[in-house]
């Protein structure tokens, strides 16, 4: 329940932050990579570092991660299939995989796992479409019902919590 409340808080604050729709959409899109791919992978450390270091919405990233985790579970069979095709049924890629498998560090990404590779490829391919989709959706939201929500009592209650202070540390500048 607390997690849901925090997610709601993140959503509300993200949508009404000072960040641009582009920053929020970038955070959501990066968060989708965390959610769609198996979390404990080296590439997700890179994605997390990008979320922290790049001037994107951290709350949006958390929101994207939370939303896309169940989607990842649902799409796992599809990811598995993509991974199988890429790793085992595409001879042209075999030299690439062999090279990567015998390189330092790269094998730590678990790229040679069908689900990991399939989900990573899928999330990277969908990154740009997600980015534009989320940017359009955030802009539409702010232009339509955003101001009314900002004036509501429950919005004030949410933003008044202590968690907001932590959030402000990572809010887009």
């Amino acid at each position, binding site marked *: 329940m607390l997690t849901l409340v925090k997610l709601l808080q993140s959503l509300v604050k993200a949508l009404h932050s000072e960040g641009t729709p582009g920053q929020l959409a970038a955070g959501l899109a990066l968060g989708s990579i965390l959610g769609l791919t198996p979390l404990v992978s080296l590439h997700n450390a890179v994605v997390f570092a990008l979320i922290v270091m790049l001037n994107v919405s951290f709350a949006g990233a958390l929101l994207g991660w939370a939303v896309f985790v169940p989607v990842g579970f649902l799409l796992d069979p599809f990811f598995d299939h993509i991974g199988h095709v890429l790793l085992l049924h595409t001879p042209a890629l*075999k030299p690439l*995989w062999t090279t990567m498998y015998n390189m330092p560090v790269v094998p730590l990404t678990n790229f040679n796992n069908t689900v990991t590779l399939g989900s990573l490829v899928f999330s990277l391919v969908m990154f740009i479409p997600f980015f534009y989709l989320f940017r359009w959706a955030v802009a539409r939201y702010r232009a339509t019902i955003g101001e009314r929500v900002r004036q509501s009592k429950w919005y004030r209650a949410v933003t008044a919590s202590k968690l907001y202070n932590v959030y402000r540390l990572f809010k887009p500048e």
Partner: protein
Amino acid sequence: MSVRIFRWRAIGPLLVFLGVGGVLWWLFADRIARRSAEKIGTAIVGAKVEIQSLHIDLANGDVTIGGLTVASPHEALKNLFQADELVADIDVLPLLEKKVVIDRLAANGLRFGTPRETDGRVPTDPSASVSGRVMNEARDWAQGFQVPALQLATGKIDVGTLDPRKLSAIPAAEALSARADSSRKVWQTGLDSLRLGPTVDSATATLARLKTARATDLGALNEARRAIDQLKQARNRVTTLDRSVTGGMTALRAGVAGLDSAKQRDYAFARGLLKLPTLDAPEIGLALFAPTAVSQFQRALYWTQLAKAHMPPGLQPRADVGPPRRRRSGSTVRFPREQALPGFLLRTAELSFLLDPTAAQPKKYAGRLTGLTSDPAVYGRPTLFEASAPAVTAGAMLDHVHATARDTAGATVQDVKLPPIQLPSLPMTLDPGRGTAQLGFALRGDTIRARWSIRSTHVQWARDSAAPRSTGADLLWRTLSGISDLQVDAGVTGTLSHPRLVVRSNLDEAIAARLRTMLGEEAAGAERRLRAEVDRQVDPAIAPVRARVTTLQTDITKRLADQRARLDQAQKDLEARLRELTRIRVP
């Protein structure tokens, strides 16, 4: 408004985050590694792998494992081995390639076959784990052997059910009965068609007239001669019928004799229903020791096939089941390459182990393992194991470098406590005591050649008190309990799909001789019972037919004799009167 790309002030928290990660690694790396090692080891072996402590010293490239226990995948309450301490000297750089290369491993205090308190086997899904699949294949292979069972331990022979429909004497008797009836009718008709009554009556009347006739009464004389001719003709017909009856009776008597033959065949058929156990010594060896021998071969096959699964030949990409996690495991594909490092390589292991660890003074030995790798084709050399000591010789070679895998293993252990053997067909247990055990195993592609033998001179026998007592079991017990030497040799040759098992022991002949004695009495009794059953079913059908044929023979013979006697008497009377009339009297 320009938007900056980087959030520089987040570097501080990120560094703190990394620092916290580093501290957590420092705190929990050993625990995480220990659990991972247990999980991976369990998946590989197919039985629980337990580690008491594990310490990683990356700075010096050392990993120390304390209190390693690997349960046996074949026996519930036994460990495959335990080790007091394993110290591995690992290469750190290959870890960046997610490869584990151990330059040297020192294993101290290895003990084999130690007991454990809980079942160490893990239920495995054959479709999801390599060990489960290999275990199933090895089990199926072992179950493919046809092992005969001795059923004489209780001195009983199984008597099959005698189906009257399968007895040949009964339908033969029914057929003969029908033939006898038919013959009786035919012969009765023949007798009736002789019409002897009118002929004899006519002759009698002629004789009466002839008594009053004179010698000059030629009409009467001629009539008498015609009557005699008629009598002769009638007698010829009787003779013809008699011949036919004789032939028919001969056939019927042959039929009766055939009933006896059919009954003998029924006896033979009934004897075939006796499920007599084999008396051949090789078969007895199979029945007694095949389960134990096959169990040894099954284990050797399991380990070699497991090694082949985890150390496959060739350089083709290989897909294994991915790591267990909440998300789908998927498949993890390995891409070995020549002149690269294998995914796992143990260059050298120095093994220090104890044999017979439960003895008062267990003996300490040393062994050496080299070239254990997950990618033999990449490493380019076979895996070798050797251990030798005055009483122990063991060696193994797993050559998966080329396309056709060649696995060989052999071990001879002398003066070691051999485990008791439960003889599956006999109500007794054999405790070989201390003796010599030998196992040789070679698998080249699909061709197997394996040998297992044990020798002991201090055999002890224990009778199964729960087994039912019988005279046969008592005799067998007296025979075997006096034997103190044991020599068992078992071998498997052929292909994995069509293996041939041979088992011989010095007990075979002794048991075979005793069984022959026991069987001689028991089999005779069983045969008597079966013959009585055949008699009970067949005799009611045979006896009436036999009596009917006898009666028919007596009856028809008597009737023919009577008729012939009447004809003879009438002819004799007529001829006598005729001679009397035609005699020339000299005044």
